[in-house]
């Protein structure tokens, strides 16, 4: 069985670790002191680049690379720590804020030193009242001890951290939505480019980083890049010649919920498989795994055929899904996928910020279609139509067979694909919320099509046995959605 490796969470349960004195006993702020004593800011940025650290907030973008886009000559530059944690199924940042806030402050200090940043805003979701209270108290202590404020520890650095409460809107987790919200406006995402690294909050260069990403920094500096890169797999990206390393290094705070016996946060090296994680979380609650959502509700679903998929950034991308925020939701054989999709679509319909027409109208439309199917009013066309596919002569065309049309399923797919097309990975919206809507909609429907068809046919929700409900990988284009360069797929 895979062992937990607690690094970020190592001292989480130490009593009073939220106070400066106890945190200090466990190497607290020593990594920051090491950074300022032994390294130049550029060295730290290089270490982060070499460590292969990828952002833990959702996009999985290389942190070092993001930092390299920030123009060094435009000041002030801001750091926004993304503590908005609203992706359904994700709850690891909450524990850091509530139990070990000084670790986050130390991470922020290291980032500020590396990037020459003087002001940090921590955007905390409005519901995290306890987390905000604990972090505010820790920040106050850090000011008193001289780790924040003017001339930090006599180094001449000026660093301020402020917390900023959100007010219950999911979209403020998107980095440009967060920036708008921080400026005191509606949290409606901006068009990119310009990217926040170049023009972010108050029109200045801005680094947006998730809580977990920042908490990795003290350990990279403290223990070195070599130690860090030993954890987790590094693949070869064969799109480049010669192949370049594609690191999935470090540990991940996997949040697992749903039908497992011991839901919770487990810190493990990146790269373990889905079934291994379920085992670590006390095993499945139920008889059989029906489906697993691997990266928060926005991620395409995995079926029981795909349980050996490794949970890291690269492997999940190749499996046409994503690690996202690392929120894993497990469903057992008693669950109805139509019902689950309905729940998720209600969420997205509620959270669309309303700026782009395809998202504003399309998302409630998708929800209404799924609602209709779940209520037993799904539309089925009894007329059969020619089935298109590869013909005997090996060309695309009329196969001579006929198929029944489930009008609502076609409609569902077409509406979803008009928000964002999951096959070509193009979106008709300002932000990738559009993809977060159509990914689950299309992947649930394609991979669990028999259950959707049954609901329409029978006029009520029917929960099929796992084997019957799931479309096998070889039979369906569901598993081929999303364009991935061929060379990369051979990896």
């Amino acid at each position: 069985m895979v062992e937990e490796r607690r690094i970020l969470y190592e001292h989480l349960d130490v009593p009073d670790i939220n106070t400066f004195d106890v945190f200090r006993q466990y190497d607290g702020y020593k990594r920051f002191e090491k950074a300022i004593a032994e390294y130049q800011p550029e060295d730290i940025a290089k270490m982060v680049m070499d460590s292969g650290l990828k952002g833990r907030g959702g996009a999985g973008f290389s942190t070092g690379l993001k930092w390299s886009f920030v123009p060094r000559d435009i000041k002030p530059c801001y750091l926004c720590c993304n503590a908005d944690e609203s992706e359904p199924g994700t709850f690891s940042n909450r524990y850091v804020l509530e139990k070990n806030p000084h670790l986050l402050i130390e991470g922020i200090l290291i980032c500020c030193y590396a990037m020459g940043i003087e002001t940090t805003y921590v955007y905390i979701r409005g519901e995290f009242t306890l987390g905000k209270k604990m972090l505010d108290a820790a920040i106050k202590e850090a000011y008193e001890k001289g780790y924040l404020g003017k001339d930090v520890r006599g180094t001449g650095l000026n660093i301020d951290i402020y917390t900023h409460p959100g007010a219950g809107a999911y979209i403020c987790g998107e980095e440009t939505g967060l920036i708008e919200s921080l400026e005191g406006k509606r949290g409606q995402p901006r068009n990119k480019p310009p990217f926040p690294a170049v023009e972010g909050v108050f029109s200045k260069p801005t680094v947006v980083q998730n809580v977990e990403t920042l908490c990795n920094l003290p350990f990279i500096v403290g223990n070195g890049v070599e130690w860090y890169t030993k954890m987790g797999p590094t693949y070869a990206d064969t799109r480049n010649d010669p192949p370049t390393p594609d690191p999935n290094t470090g540990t991940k705070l996997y949040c697992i919920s749903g039908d497992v016996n011991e839901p919770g946060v487990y810190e493990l090296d990146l790269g373990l498989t889905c079934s291994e994680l379920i085992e670590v979380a006390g095993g499945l609650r139920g008889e059989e795994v029906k489906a697993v959502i691997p990266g928060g509700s926005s991620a395409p679903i995995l079926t029981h055929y795909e349980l050996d998929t490794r949970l890291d950034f690269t492997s999940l991308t190749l499996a046409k899904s994503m690690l996202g925020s690392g929120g894993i939701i497990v469903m057992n054989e008693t669950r109805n996928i139509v019902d689950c999709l309905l729940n998720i679509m209600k969420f997205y319909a509620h959270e669309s910020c309303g700026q782009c027409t395809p998202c504003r109208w399309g998302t409630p439309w998708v929800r209404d279609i799924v609602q209709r199917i779940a209520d037993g009013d799904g539309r089925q066309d009894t007329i059969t139509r020619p089935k298109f596919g590869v013909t005997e002569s090996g060309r695309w065309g009329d196969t001579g067979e006929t198929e029944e049309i489930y009008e609502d399923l076609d409609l569902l797919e077409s509406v979803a694909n008009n928000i964002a097309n999951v096959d070509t990975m193009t979106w008709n919206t300002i932000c990738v919320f559009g993809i977060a809507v159509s990914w689950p909609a299309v992947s649930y429907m394609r991979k669990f099509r028999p259950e959707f068809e049954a609901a329409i046919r029978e006029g009520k929700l029917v929960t099929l046995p796992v084997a019957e409900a799931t479309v096998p990988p070889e039979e369906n284009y569901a598993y081929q959605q999303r364009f991935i360069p061929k060379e990369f797929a051979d990896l």
Partner: protein
Amino acid sequence: MSDELVQIETPFAFNEENQREFDELIGRYPIKEAAMLPTLHLAQRQEGYITPAVMKYVAEQLEVTVMKVKDVVTFYPMFFEEPVGEYVIRVCHTLPCALRDCKVVLEHLKAKLDTDIASETNLAKGTTDDGKFTLMKVECLASCDVAPVIMINDDLYKNLTPEKVDEILDNL
């Protein structure tokens, strides 16, 4: 909504403590408008909900139009434009909580408080007649490991069952 059209009955102003907090807040940002969310939170804590008078006051303090404040207030679910109960009960109903039977908790609360569920545009619908409770559904509260969860004002309650809900309500 232009400034003249707002009918203000009793004007609003921060009390001394909140004024001090506001003065500290405003120094954190290069532009005053950026203090919008924390200021509105502060005002809502004092007044209970965001009245037209609050909006006018906040607009003056932050040197923006009332329309801009209204714009923000309507966007965020945590700002109320109508009175709410003394205790606001937020029941999470997103997928991980749904997999752990949040429906049972919700139905139990509905029956026990004898009220409907508030919608964002009709808070009165979910408020009990004595004005003590407002019941509403919210999306994932980032505590799915201890689902189902509810929040009562600022406090989170975990792993709920109808019995636990009874106990919590009795102890309020």
